[in-house]
C-alpha cells in the first residue's frame, strides 16, 4: 500500500465537471467515487469497443517509475458512437490523457469523463454530453438522490 500511496501522490487531482451518469446498466455512484477524481496520462494498450460499456487500458508510469495498467470505463458503444467515437478512436500506442473518477473498490479502474487524443481533440467518454438528461440523474455525483 505504501507503493500505492506514493503512486497516488503522482496523480494530478483537480475539480472535474460533475459526471452525468448515462451508464447503460448501472448508475455512477454504485461503481465510482465522486470524491476521487483523477487525471492520468499513459499509452493505450487495448481498446474494447463493446457492450455494455467501452473499456480501454493505459500503461501509466508513476513517479516511482513503476508502470501500472489502468482500465477506463466509458459509455455504451452505441451512445458514444453517435457522439463521434469509433472502435479505432483509441489505438494501441496512442499517448492520451484521461480525466475520470476512480472505482470505489480501489482497483486500477476509473470512469472516463474525457480523453484527450494525440491530435489534441478531447472526446467525452460517454458519461455525459449528447445524451439528453433534462430530468436529472438518479444519483448525483454528490451521492444524493
Amino acid at each position, binding site marked *: 500500500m505504501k507503493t500505492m500511496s506514493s503512486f497516488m501522490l503522482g496523480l494530478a487531482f483537480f475539480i472535474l465537471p460533475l459526471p452525468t*451518469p*448515462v451508464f*447503460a*446498466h*448501472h*448508475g455512477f*455512484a*454504485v*461503481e465510482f467515487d465522486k470524491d476521487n477524481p483523477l487525471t492520468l496520462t499513459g499509452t493505450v494498450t487495448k481498446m*474494447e469497443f*463493446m*457492450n*455494455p*460499456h467501452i*473499456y480501454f487500458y493505459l500503461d501509466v508510469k508513476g513517479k516511482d517509475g513503476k508502470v501500472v495498467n489502468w*482500465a477506463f*470505463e466509458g459509455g*455504451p458503444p*452505441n*451512445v458514444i*458512437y*453517435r457522439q463521434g467515437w469509433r472502435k479505432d478512436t483509441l489505438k494501441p500506442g496512442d499517448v492520451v490523457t484521461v480525466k475520470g473518477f476512480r*472505482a*470505489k*473498490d480501489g*482497483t486500477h*479502474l476509473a470512469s472516463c469523463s474525457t480523453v484527450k487524443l494525440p491530435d489534441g481533440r478531447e472526446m467525452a467518454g460517454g458519461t455525459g454530453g449528447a*445524451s*439528453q*438528461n*433534462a*430530468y*436529472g*440523474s*438518479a*444519483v448525483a455525483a454528490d*451521492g444524493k*438522490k
Partner: protein
Amino acid sequence: MKNYFHAPTLCAASLFLVLLFVNACGGRVSSGNPQAAAPPDLNGIWSAPFTPDISKALGHQPPFTTYGAARFAKEDEFDDPLTKCLPIGPARGIQAGIMPFQIVQTPAVLTILFENQHTFRIIHTDGRSHPKDADPTWFGDSIGKWDGDTLVVDTVGLDDRTWLDTAGHEHSDQLHLVERFQKVDNNSIKWTVTFEDPKFFTEPWSITLPIARQNTEIMSYSCEENEKDRAHLRRTKK
C-alpha cells in the same frame, strides 16, 4: 326524344356530389366514417429525455404507501435489475433506456423495439382483452386502442422485479400502466404514463415526457458481451 341526361352536366353534378360527400367525411372518402379513420403513423425511431429519476419528472416523490416509502428508503442502486442484465421493463425502456427505440405499427399490433438490451414490447391493437390470471412477465400484457390521435396502451401482468427507474422506484405485480402516445406532429409524440399500484402508491400518478424522432438507426446491444462492472459495484447505502 330530347336527351335530358346531358353528359357534361351529369359529370359535373356527380363530381359535386362526390366532393360534398368527401367534405362531409372530413376528407376520408375511403372509410366514409370519421370514427374508422386511419390512426396516426407512429412508425419510426424515437427517444425520450433520459429520466433515471422519475421523481424529477414528477416534481416530487410519488405518493408512496407506507410500504412503498419504506421500500424506496432502503433500495440501493446496487440491486438494480439492469446491473444483472435483466430486462428493463415497459415504461423504463422509454424514459430511462438511454438509447432510442423503434415503433413498428400495423393495424393489429404495434411493437416497440428497444435498442437497450434489444428487448421489445408487443401492444395488441386488435381489440382483444387482457388474459385472465396470466403469469407476470418482464413487459406485461399490453393492449392498445386509438382515441383520435392518441394511442392508449393498457398494461398489466408485470413482473415486480423490474424497476421504474435507476433511482430505485419499485412496484408490485399489481402495477397497472396506462400510457397515452399522442402524435403532436411528424417529429414528436407527447407521452403520458400513469402508474397505479395500490401496494406501493396511495393513488395513481402520471408523468409526461416529449418523445422526439431520431435521425439514427437501432444499433446492436448485448449486455453480457463484455460485462465487467458487476465485480466492482459497491452498495451506496450502509
